[in-house]
């Protein structure tokens, strides 16, 4: 019976995973740049802690920021975790402002405690999101005056991951993660003239990405005394390989009414680039089971990712994430409620017109147990960009919920 149940989960998992990535997960104009808007805050638990988790270990929920963390799962335990979120994004330029809502499944993952030393996890998460609509006015070469370009984008990369971690000693864990990245990024540009009765030009660039990355993780715990524990963690990935194929379709249409004529169609060929080496380090402090503090620093060397001429050059991003988790004591017959909060700062992967597009986020959340489910809810506010230099500032309010279904396998369920 249990096997059937797992089959059921895997089925749901696969069906839903297509839904996870079918929608535009963002409305940010910044998602036009690079590979799109990266999902960097980790799973729901990590997000509530400001996106920190390189040095965190827990047996009750999944942490995808360090492959070594998964060995913390209890032997024979199974955690199926699914997250959803709703966003309200407020966009502001010098002259315009407004908001948009959207909501989506965040991720799905399964964690397995194979033995007391060996943990395994796999799942599907959005890696980057693309979804934007905006306009620019650019000078026409050869005269005074501007032409209008409307940009529309969709797509995003997904990541299938498979993680294994092993406790080499009681306090040292090593993990390795294989990720397969895949997905399209569709960028459409419409060029319009300041007069009437002309051919509007549409340029559609559809880039398909596929690639793989190996990540390695290390975690070591130091038991200071009975109540105080310090853990540090490291992550690094081997240089991966990213393949991409850009299909270019340029067409024209007269006065928005005529038929569409193809000017150029280039199906493109797969080309290859190196996925850069990124590093991360984290430190966590636990006081008994009551308090956890964590801090991470990581560096993403995006400037080494070179795709093509049209591709916006990226710059290296530094992330600083701190989080705190507090579990106050409650009456013995009640399950405790966990309170979490965090802060996340990213220096930004893009420099536009000399302006770093950095991002600051505050997060807060709580977790509780409901029967065999562990429920985490969180809220996050992040602000990015600026209205200076004709850029756009975006304020994102996110509310998220993730549910961990906790079960054991190979064991008969006991009556509680």
């Amino acid at each position, binding site marked *: 019976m249990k096997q059937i149940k797992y089959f059921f989960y895997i089925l749901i998992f696969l069906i839903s995973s297509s839904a996870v990535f079918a929608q535009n997960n963002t409305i940010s104009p910044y998602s036009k740049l690079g590979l799109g808007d990266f999902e960097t805050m980790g799973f729901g638990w990590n997000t509530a802690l400001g996106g920190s988790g390189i040095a965190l270990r827990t047996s009750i929920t999944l942490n995808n920021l360090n492959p070594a963390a998964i060995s913390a799962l209890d032997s024979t335990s199974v955690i199926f975790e699914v997250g*959803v979120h709703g966003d309200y994004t407020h966009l502001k330029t010098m002259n315009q402002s407004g908001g948009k809502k959207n909501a989506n499944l965040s991720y799905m993952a399964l964690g397995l405690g194979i033995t007391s030393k060996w943990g395994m996890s796999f799942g599907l998460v959005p890696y980057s999101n693309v979804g934007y609509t905006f306009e620019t006015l650019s000078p026409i070469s050869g005269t005074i005056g501007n032409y209008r370009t409307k940009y529309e984008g969709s797509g995003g990369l997904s990541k299938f991951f498979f993680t294994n971690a092993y406790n080499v000693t009681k306090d040292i864990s090593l993990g390795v993660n294989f990720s397969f990245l895949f997905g399209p990024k569709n960028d459409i540009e419409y060029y319009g003239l300041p007069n009437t009765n002309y051919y509007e030009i549409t340029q559609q660039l559809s880039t398909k990405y596929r690639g793989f990355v190996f990540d390695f993780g290390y975690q070591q715990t130091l038991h200071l005394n009975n109540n105080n524990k310090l853990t540090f963690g490291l992550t690094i990935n081997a240089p991966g390989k990213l393949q991409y194929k850009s299909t270019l379709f340029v067409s024209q249409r007269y006065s928005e009414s005529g038929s569409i004529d193809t000017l150029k169609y280039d199906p493109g060929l797969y080309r290859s680039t190196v996925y850069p080496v990124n590093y991360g380090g984290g430190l966590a402090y636990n006081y008994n089971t009551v308090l956890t503090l964590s801090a991470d620093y990581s560096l993403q060397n995006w400037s080494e990712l070179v795709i093509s001429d*049209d591709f916006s050059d990226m710059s290296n991003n530094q992330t600083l994430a701190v989080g705190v988790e507090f579990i106050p004591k409650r009456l013995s017959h009640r399950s405790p409620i966990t309170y979490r909060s965090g802060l996340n700062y990213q220096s930004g992967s893009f420099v536009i017109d000399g302006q770093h597009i950095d991002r600051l986020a505050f997060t807060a959340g709580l977790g509780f147990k409901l029967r065999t489910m562990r429920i985490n809810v969180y809220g996050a506010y992040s602000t990015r960009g600026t209205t200076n230099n004709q850029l756009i500032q975006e304020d994102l309010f996110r509310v998220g919920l993730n549910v961990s279904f906790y079960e054991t396998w190979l064991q008969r369920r006991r009556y509680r």
Partner: protein
Amino acid sequence: MFKESFFGKLIVISLFLVSCSDDDAVYKIGDKFTTVQSKIHFVDTITVSASTVLLDSFPTSGYNKIFVGYNMDEQLGNSYAESYVEFTHKGSLPELDSTVTFDSIVLYLRQSGAYSGDTNIIKTIAIHRVLEEITPRELNNTLNNSDNFLTSAEPYAELSFEQWPRSLEENFCRLPDSLGLNWFQMIVDKDSIIVSDDNFKEYFQGLAIKPITKDISWSATFYGVDELADNKIVDELQIRLYFRRKNEMENEFFAFVPSEKSKIFTHYKIDHTGSILDGIENTTQILSGNTNNLMFVQAGGRVGFRIDVPLINNLNELHPNMSIMSARLIIKPSKGTYEKASKLPTLHAYWIDSNNEITELLTDVTGQFAITSELNADDFYDENTYYSFNVLNYILYKMDRAIYSNESLFFSLSAQDNATTFNRVVLEDQSFSKSLELQLYYVVY
């Protein structure tokens, strides 16, 4: 315990939440956002040569307008217009016996409101009898501007009248009683000459309406057959035969009306002698350099101008991956040659072949809409008055076939304006600054 239903709800809720977006505003942000180079380019320095052409004769019938007048034009030569109309009787003839008395015969005219010249000056026209059948000189042709017909040396009558802006003024011109009595008697006698339509048209071949006033520039337009104007049906041109029945207090009339629109036409004479167009011949072209760097458009003779883009093939070499998005021809009328910018006439664009014969109308690239001028009229300062034409279709066609085709573009008044006005426009060529420009926008992809 697993709560399947909870999981189900979660899926449902999450799907429900998906993509409920509200604000559809498109945000405008600076072009620095994307690093791409400008993809749209503009050129307006392409050489365009222009020459004035007098086309072959053109149809002036079918417009249902009796156009008459005289136009003095020092620059382009004086024009003269007279109109011819063939008549038939309207409906069946009345039953008249010897107790009915003839009263009079009158030509009834209705002004269309289109006119030129001063309103407060009295103009005079003469009504002549046509002595030949009004029919095209060549088989399968239509009556055209150069056609004219033998008329009586002495007019039947003269009519002096005034014109008012936009008025549908009625005019009555009494014709000789001898003519009226003759027709009256034939009706009484049921003479086959008048009973049969064909016989009548052979007997009475029509009227010619000619201008007498020739010391000012003026024109008048009268309606031909019934027409809607100001949402009313306007009475057509009529020869009214008035008579009175015994013991009746009022006259009755029987009307003779134009036989058909194609038998109402205008004959033009333009005397180019001594004008800048002296020596212009049909279908030859005079380069603008020989006419003070000007081009001309003139009604009545179908004078217009042709443009050529000699280096059009070079456009293909602007860039290997380019496409023309928009092509406009900008032409400025010569300042001081028109009274009011906003009253400049609309110009039409035609394909013209190497023999300077019109082949067809120029359309937009969809082939659906004929290209006419868009006038930018600067009445106030008169600094920025110009005609603009969408010539994208022409440019694309020529870029494909420049070396094989001698076709080009011809600009003139509309066919109707050519046939029923004295409109004229003087335009400047490329030797004037910003007067004649081909403006192209192209994209490089």
